[in-house]
């Protein structure tokens, strides 16, 4: 036994040597989110010509130094946001990342025990954010541009805000599917040549899936889902796992979130998203500040920043539609996404999703023969 350990140790040492001797170069990547065009931090915090915090709030926030963020947003994307925020403000962000449904459970439990550890909470789905709000997890905070934001953005007098909407469409693996062969519309996916080679997330995988299914039922009809099910798609429990499977080529075409495709492509994955002729789904992400925030000033600053022009620009660069209706539609991987008024991006309204949620889920599970 001792000898084995000795051998193992020496093998490991040799491996470590080989590692140091081997190639260590970083793979080619581009910076996803660029620096702010103008940034003034001397008294007020002014980014891109917009005051994000007055000198008093900014000084307090800097003194607090950090915030605790509970987020249901895709981790890689949230990290890009945090990177930009810290670059702009010098304030660190401690991230607890959980899938939205688990996050809801966590927040409700902590709030019930009066031990909520978050300063700010970001999650998708109106029903979840409402449940948190009902439990008293949010306190009202009016961001500086409160009056300019429309009513689909600010909720309950500033207790929580809709900040951005990811676009849920489909994507293909460019190493396996040429651009000419690539599907251009949702209907194209029903072509027999894709049988067994496509994927989708299950309806209960989160607010994103629920919104996509709502869009599909609304714009394409129940028969479309039946056709999709007949294609024998691989069904995933999380869009992250599906994205990776697509990148690796286990499947050739799959439903996908534009920003995730953007980040995967940025990490050298051969993937490209499609803007289908029938349009695609948008789903909401919300942000709110907690009443028991340990770092209240920094939390307010984070809220302000998220809803500022700079925030909109950061989310847009990642590939999301900013909630601020005056912000332009994002350009991702050199593709200009259609503006809201083209009717192609379809945002499921909270009322619509709440009304149909249960039935959509049952319908989908029945059509795909899925347990859920």
């Amino acid at each position, binding site marked *: 036994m001792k000898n084995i350990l000795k051998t193992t140790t020496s093998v490991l040492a040799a491996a470590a040597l080989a*590692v140091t001797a081997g190639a260590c*170069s970083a793979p080619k990547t581009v910076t996803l989110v660029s620096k702010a065009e103008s940034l003034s931090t001397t008294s007020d915090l002014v980014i891109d010509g917009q005051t994000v915090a007055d000198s008093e709030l900014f000084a307090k926030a800097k003194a607090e130094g950090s915030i*605790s963020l509970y987020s249901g947003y895709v981790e890689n994307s949230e990290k890009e946001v945090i990177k930009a925020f810290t670059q702009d403000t010098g304030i660190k962000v401690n991230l607890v990342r959980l*899938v939205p449904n688990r996050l809801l459970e966590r927040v409700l439990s902590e709030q019930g025990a009066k031990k909520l550890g978050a300063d700010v909470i970001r999650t998708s789905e109106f029903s979840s954010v409402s449940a948190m709000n009902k439990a008293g997890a949010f306190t009202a905070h009016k961001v500086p541009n409160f009056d300019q934001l429309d009513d689909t953005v600010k909720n309950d007098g500033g207790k929580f805000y809709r900040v951005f909407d990811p676009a849920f469409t489909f994507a293909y693996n460019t190493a396996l599917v040429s651009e000419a062969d690539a599907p251009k519309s949702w209907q194209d996916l029903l072509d027999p040549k894709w049988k067994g080679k496509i994927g989708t997330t299950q309806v209960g995988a989160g607010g994103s899936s629920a919104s996509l299914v709502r869009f599909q039922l609304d714009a394409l009809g129940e028969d479309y889902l039946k056709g999709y099910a007949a294609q024998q798609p691989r069904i995933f*429990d999380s869009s*992250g796992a*599906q994205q990776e499977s697509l*990148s690796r*080529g286990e499947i050739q075409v799959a439903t996908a979130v534009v920003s995730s495709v953007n980040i995967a492509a940025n990490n050298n994955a051969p993937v490209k998203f499609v803007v289908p002729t029938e349009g695609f789904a948008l789903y909401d992400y919300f942000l709110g500040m907690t009443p028991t925030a340990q770092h209240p000033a920094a939390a307010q600053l984070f809220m302000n920043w998220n809803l500022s022009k700079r925030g909109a620009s950061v989310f847009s660069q990642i590939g999301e539609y900013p909630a601020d209706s005056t912000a332009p539609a994002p350009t991702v991987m050199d593709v200009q996404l259609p503006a809201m008024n083209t009717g192609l991006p379809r945002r499921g309204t909270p009322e619509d999703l709440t009304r149909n949620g249960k039935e959509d889920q049952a319908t989908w599970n029945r059509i795909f023969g899925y347990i859920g």
Partner: protein
Amino acid sequence: MPTWLMLALLAILILMPVALILISAFSSSTPRPGSIGLSGLTLENFKILSSHQSVTALTNSLVVATSASVLAMFIGGTLAFLAARTNIWGKAVIYFIGIAPMFLPSLVGALAWSLLAGPATGYLNLLTRGIGLGNLFNVYTMPGLIFVLALYYAPYAFLLIHGAMTLMNPDLEEAASVHGGSLGKILSTVTFPLVTPAILGSGVLIFALTMENFPVAQMIGTPGQIETLPTFIYRLMNSAPARGNEAAAVAVVLTVVLIAVTAIQQRMVMKRNFTTVSGKGMKPRMMDIGKLRGVGLSFALGYFALAIVLPVVALLLASLQSSPYVSNLGQLFGEDALSFWSLFQTLQSAAFLDAARNSVMVAVCVAVLGAALAFYLSYIVYRTKTPGRKSLEFVAMLPLAIPAIVMGLGLLWTWLVLPLPVYGTIVVLIIAFIAIYLPQGYRGMSASILQVDKDLEDSAVLLGSTRARAVSYVTLPLMKTGVMSTVLLLLMLAMRELSAALFLFTSNTRLLAIVVFDNYDNGALRSAASTSLLYILVILALVVLAKAFGARATNGEAR
């Protein structure tokens, strides 16, 4: 410690979370701090059990757990027999192979096998395609799931059976041999019946563990649409809105099934006397298996390749690949196709370093405290006539029957409600893991306490020693192999645990398993692979250290 105090401890550790889950199963709203009550009692949640889906999930789980346990016990038992009782070459190597897969969490193993044998682009498929055989492998199938589970649960069978086999009194076999028994006859009528408690114990343990295993079922089963109870429960918990009540109802049924299995095994162990260690000196007899030595050795090496070598190679390749997509193996040797960059990034990242520190701290505390608690408990149950000891045992075995993911939720509620400031700290993870792994600790301890003759300790007491002194100078040293195996077992289990921590970690108390699973779930596979590799190295380092402390005592290997 009087029995009632122990009972109180177990009540907080185990009964309270279980009670919260039970309330949840019969309630119309999820019990959370601030809203726990017996109002809204309902049987509505149990309706889900009659659904076609639950029946499918239950059937799949039973098939998977049964087949995986049989396969795992065959692998583990064979290796244990080879290492403990035969004249095979390189026994230390066999022993090492028997326990080595424990260094690889099933989570990591599942990740590696999905890289190796995923359809279309698994490395093994690239290999068979390269030599013109086409795609041969698809791990996302029922056999694939059983295979991966068996690979990573075989060491449990190995550890328990090996422990029992080294402690076996050779006189009985000697006697059989003197009276003309053949090798096969001795094995089937003397050797194997004597290790029955260990075999049954490991069988029940593996059955329960594979039945409630979440990471493998999620990574291998789910992509192939093979639903099992843990993934079903996970999905219910994770659906929007969370269906915690129905999940609890499913968990209650699973609990009942597993309690029944445990009870049957219990009856078999309790009604007979398996004492094999007495005051007489002993040295297990080594059997000459002749030509079978070669077969045995290749069996062990084959298992080692499947459980360790191939997965590690796959993880290494995946963490070095600059692009996630590979069309053929030759591509990997192209310029800039492989880079250590990501591995170094991970190694230096605060996320990894913090998680590694947390994991090690939790595992060490769980191993030491958990083993001490388990010993005390086994002692009360098997060595005293204290009233209520049966109920102690029942409570201690309870967590085995509750899926860790559900138990994790119960523990979250418990520690949010209790006025002790441990929630959000690493302490709550330690408490949770001790509770969840108490059955394994208890099983390990009681299996070895059953083999040590009570008379030895009593003699010391008769000669004037105090009971505590007699335990520490007589009983414990005799149980050394068993005790150290249990400590090692708990250490490994705690290092590997994922499900129970899912609801309890905070940003400051992330564990390595959490980091890997989150990376996988978020589609950051390269980072999941590099974290996994380093995860294995951390576990390995820990084992080497543990060995340095109690090296020779940990097992019965070549002395």
